């Protein structure tokens, strides 16, 4: 992040596996972030409380406490971005963690480029919320202006139904961030529809047909298997 003008960025890693901590630290430090390691959840909470980091990376399978509890505890007093690391076998925990306020996740094994992309996206979102700019986003041939409620593709207006627009607006407002099925259903359809994930699937499929170049191989409106959806602006994220 050479173009970043802000002072040093502090990241806390809470992970019990020393080798994973080691390479995550190496990768992050190569990007000029300052990293603090913690092997246990209890220690991690203290680090987060005293050092006020800009981002926390938490492993869901900690030996001393449940990762979910840790996230819940942190969310009580802090709004800072949380990135979770999870093994493939605890899919359900991952979704729960996201529903409880974690911002994004990485499934083990993950590569360094993915890790850095997620970290950047989370930090950028932090900066943007501080700046509070009116979000206008471009992806592929599409431009979405939330202020004007306008969606254009190659300069032409795209007609979206009310639900499709609300769905897109949620994705745009959370660019780069994974949104769980439950969150989307709650925000778009209301609190009583949280079991009807098939609504979501059908409307997402419609959105892709209207906005994606090839709806069968989506480049921007991505599915996170078993978790939810994510809008990415360009492929290198």
């Amino acid at each position, binding site marked *: 992040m050479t173009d970043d003008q802000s002072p040093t960025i502090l990241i806390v890693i809470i992970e019990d596996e020393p080798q994973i901590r080691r390479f995550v630290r190496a990768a992050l430090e190569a990007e000029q972030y300052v990293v603090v390691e913690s092997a246990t959840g209890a220690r991690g909470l203290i680090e987060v409380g005293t050092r006020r980091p800009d981002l926390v990376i938490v492993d869901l399978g900690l030996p001393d406490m449940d990762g979910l509890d840790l996230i819940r505890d942190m969310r009580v007093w802090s709004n800072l971005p949380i990135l979770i690391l999870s093994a493939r076998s605890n899919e359900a925990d991952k979704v729960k963690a996201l529903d409880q306020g974690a911002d994004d996740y990485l499934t083990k094994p993950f590569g*360094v480029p993915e890790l850095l992309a997620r970290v950047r996206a989370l930090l950028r979102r932090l900066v943007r919320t501080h700046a509070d700019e009116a979000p206008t986003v471009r992806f592929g041939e599409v431009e979405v202006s939330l202020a004007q409620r306008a969606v254009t593709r190659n300069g032409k207006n795209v007609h979206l139904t009310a639900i499709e627009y609300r769905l897109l607006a949620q994705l745009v407002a959370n660019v780069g961030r994974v949104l769980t099925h439950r969150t989307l259903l709650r925000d778009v359809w209301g609190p009583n529809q949280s079991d009807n994930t098939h609504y979501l699937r059908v409307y997402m499929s419609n959105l892709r047909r209207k906005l994606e170049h090839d709806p069968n191989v989506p480049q921007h409106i991505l599915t996170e298997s078993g978790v939810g959806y994510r809008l990415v602006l360009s492929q290198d994220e």
Partner: protein
Amino acid sequence: MTNPPGPVWPIREAVLVCVGPGPDSEKLVRRAARRANQTGAPWHAIVIETPSMLALPESARARILGILHMAQEMGAKTATLTGQGAVEVAIAYAREHNLGTLLVGRDRYRRLPWQHGFAEKLGRLAPDLELLQVARDDEEPGTTQSRFVPKAWPSRLAWRPYLWSFLVVALVTAGSAPLHDHLDLANIIMIFLLTVVFAAVRLGRGAAALAAFLSVESFDFFFVPPRFSHAVHDAQYLVTFAVMLTVALVVGQLTAGLRFQASVASKREQRMQALYEMARDLSSALNLEQIVTICQRFIKQGFNASVTVFVPGLEEQLTLAEGSARLEAVDVGIAQRCFAQGQSIGLEMGMIPSSHALYVPLKAPTRRCGVLAVVPDDQTWELPLEQKQLLDTSASLIAIALERVHCVILARDAQVSMESERLRNALLSAISHDLRTPLTVITGLTDAMRMAIPALPEPHASLACAVRDEVARTTTMVNNLLDMARMQMGNIVLNREWQTLEEVVGISMSGCTPLLAQHTVRIELPADLPLLELDTGLMGRVFHNLLENAAKYTPPGSQITLSAHQEGDSVQIVVADNGPGLPPGMEKELFEKFTRGKMESTVGGFGLGLAIVRSIVEAHGGSVWAENGPEAGARFVLMLPVGHPPTIPEEF
């Protein structure tokens, strides 16, 4: 009951029908059932055992109990009550159970002015009850052939009490004769009356009547002057004879009636006691074996018979219950028939004449849970009606106990399978965690090397890349192995959701990007495909494996096409390539575990990919096969059932 219940409070319709010896009882019950069903009202059917009813022949009583049983099968609550007057008992029952409507047969014509019909009496005594008189069939009583008249029970010739009665009167006469000079004739009469009472108490109704006649006769012959002759000097003695005969008969009949009622009551109490004890024992039984033991003991004591208990096994086939011995006279075929029909058959039931056992179905509220085969210990075994009822009641008790034990077993099994599922998952998670952690570390460390600043010099940079690729492949293999293990270790538990096919394919595609870098992939999914009920994760694995397979076994630059279309109740999905195609004859074997297209191949892998594909597709109720395409290349075809997709509300 100390206080008689108050008048009926008609909050809702409820019907009471009294079953009596009349010919239209059966019709009454059917009418009551129809009426209750139409209004959804509860209904009760009762039998009132008055002394006069107890005096009826057994065939008539059997008919009444049969009708009561029919009412129970039709959904009535039934009860057998005792009392002197049927009307009073019926009214008390109706008030106690808050039954507002009484269904009775229309009264017959009055024979004598002071005879009142049942309905008329009811109307007079209980103005708060609604009375419905059901039309009477104009058939002569006795010509109505009810299907509830069983064969007459063989009754032993009961001549003994009469002989005793004769002997007692003779003895009393002989004993009193010497006292003739010392006692008034009035006192002699008293002695004879006492004799009649004795006969009534000890010998029964008929013997009492005989004693009454004999007493008058012997009094006349031996004591009234002129003695030893039937002639009578004083005409006043005729009055004496008449009064003596009347009093003797009345006292005798009353006494005998009371005694009969007392003995009926005590027998009923014995039955209740036996039932109560069995119910108590059954309620503490914990397993099938205990229930069988209790059942054997009860049938032995109560019916002097042995019993075999059958319980349904696989596909409703009856098998011997644990701890129950197979008796020689018991036929499994008949038991099976009894189980299927849900009715008692065998022995006295007149359906299988040659059978030596009685088969009683065990009916619990939710299902039939077995058959009781009762084999009498001696050949001249009889089952009076009350005993038959007792057997039926005990069969329901046993059925409920069996049902309870069955539920306990179900619950335990569910818990065991839940527990083993939990253990299995814990084990797999642990293995998966332990295998993945080093993979994550190697991936991360090689990434760090590749991205190091300053960049690694060649050939180290390409070595790092090679390590990275191998790790990716190892990861895929570990995933396959763990998936296979998960599927082998237990039933695949699908987490099915209504899903669009394009989303599942999209997920697999994004996971395969590096593998497919050197191939062209075309996805042809029509927009109107129905939603499919799939486990997204597992189905994604299927497409991942198929695409990976195609990429592995076709030369770089080949084209892979994934297409789908609906075909009737199924969706057909085809993954085709334009590579070299499948070796002939290998189409089926490919889906076996550890089978690979080319044995001596440089392509890595265990040959698990397609086996996993088949397991997953079959768990979804679909099928998968491989074939060679019409032109060139291999085709993998999946058929998935459409099912009943939910509707999506149209947006307005």
